[in-house]
């Protein structure tokens, strides 16, 4: 296949350059360090984890609100869900970024705060969790924007789970005198969540793939780093194939984890 591509595509492969852009030994500092692609991979992992947690919390709240008895809450939740599920992710991410994240960052004065941390001695501790602290506001934008988008889908999944719990359960809970909150907490939610593990796993894997879209708002994750690498070195095919392999390992690994979790 390599030979066919070379004949039809007129490209000289330079695979030997790629490992240097993953991990590299630096003579002047005498240490190994993660280069562009690995930095991007770590950023994608961080963003995926934080956005998943946030999307899970928001989505569960939305799903419960969607099933609430109160009409206002139910309508608000339904509007949010329907809006976000029916607009393409790229469009939503741009809208949220320019109208929500930017205002939030200015209001909380995140730029000055993160720069203060980057200059302080505590920087390495923060960098483990968030990467280069100077890029912290853009990381937060990416996480928030991705989480708000994915929360809509998680909300629908949670709603389906809640509504799939037999009505008899709810009636029985009321019969023994449980309040709405207790009924949710002890009867409905445990059953609902166990039922929706497969679609939820699917959604989180989808989230990892959707995280590549936030490269368009200049979040320094794997796709963005690959674009930078290609623009600097013209290693088009090698760079993108390597990135595809990284995403595959990440998503496939997660799906294996969920399969084990299901069978537990």
């Amino acid at each position: 296949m390599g030979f066919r591509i070379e004949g039809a595509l007129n490209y000289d492969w330079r695979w030997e350059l790629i490992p240097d852009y993953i991990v590299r030994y630096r003579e002047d500092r005498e240490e190994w360090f993660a280069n562009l692609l690995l930095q991007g991979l770590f950023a994608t992992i961080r963003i995926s984890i934080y956005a998943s947690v946030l999307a899970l919390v928001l989505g569960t709240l939305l799903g419960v609100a969607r099933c609430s008895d109160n009409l206002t809450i139910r309508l608000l939740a339904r509007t949010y869900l329907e809006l976000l599920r029916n607009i393409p992710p790229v469009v939503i991410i741009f809208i949220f970024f320019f109208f929500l994240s930017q205002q939030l960052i200015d209001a909380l004065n995140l730029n000055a705060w993160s720069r203060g941390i980057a200059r302080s001695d505590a920087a390495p501790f923060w960098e483990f969790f968030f990467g280069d602290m100077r890029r912290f506001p853009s990381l937060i934008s990416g996480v928030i924007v991705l989480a708000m988008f994915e929360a809509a889908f998680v909300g629908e999944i949670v709603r389906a789970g809640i509504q799939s719990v037999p009505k008899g359960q709810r009636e029985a809970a009321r019969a023994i005198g449980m309040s709405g909150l207790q009924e949710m907490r002890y009867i409905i939610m445990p059953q609902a969540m166990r039922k929706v593990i497969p679609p939820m796993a699917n959604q989180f894997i989808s989230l990892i793939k959707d995280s590549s879209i936030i490269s368009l708002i200049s979040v320094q994750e794997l796709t963005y780093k690959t674009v930078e690498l290609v623009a600097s070195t013209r290693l088009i095919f090698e760079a993108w194939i390597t990135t595809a392999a990284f995403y595959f390992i990440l998503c496939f690994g997660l799906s294996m984890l969920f399969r084990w979790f299901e069978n537990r």
Partner: protein
Amino acid sequence: MSTTRRKIMSNALGMAFAALTSTVLAVPAFAQSATQSLSSESVIETIKKDGVIRIGLSIFTPWSMRDINGELIGFELDVGRALAEDMGVDVEFVPTAWDGIIPQLVSGNFDVIISGMSVTPARNLTINFTNPYAYSGLTILSNSAMTDGFALEDYNSSDVTFGARRGGTPATVIGQLFPEATLLLFDEDGAATQEVLNGNAHATMGAEPTPSLEARRYPDTLSVPFDQTFLATGEGFGLRKGDADALNFFNNWIAVRHANGWLKERNDYWFKGTDWEDQVTQ
């Protein structure tokens, strides 16, 4: 709890929730007016106060690139570091996707764009430009086999296909110079050049020295057929509108650096020479 009481409580809760959501949605509006009043103060003052100048740039060889250690190097980096040194502040480079670089300047993500941005009237309607600090012309890079014997006028025909990066100046110039030809747009330069290499496009245009570099790398397929350069209008710093102090400061900085020959020396190093190539790929 009686049914009526539960209904009243539930409605009250719902109203409170609705009130909360509408207030939360109003907060961005307050924050926006705060941002506007902040930008009426010159960016030079905020740079001095914060002790750092944030420069937005986009990766584009050889203006700014990632070297083999993943660090940023290039003409823009030299300019930015010299500017920060002269201002007595730290410098922070904010790598940004080219498509969104102007919106992000306008919304305050960074203080100035130093990214080889050509001065064009269309962009000037949204942001201010300084005087040019570099003049790079565009040249045509074509597939030698497919454009054998073509004169300049032959490129302007409906059988000819061009490739270019979307949003970049070459795309606009191709549209103006060769209106009959088909234009394919891509997200990055590499893809446009690859199309020419594969024979799917006849030619692309790019700012020197990239076309000459590519022609040297693939001498059998690519060539720069004409010495003529197009659109040497010049590249300037991009700043937000309404900031006369910053415009004055940057213009004078550029004038000083032109006068003492520093800008020309740096420009020749990055654009005319190839000494830096082994730092990028080995």
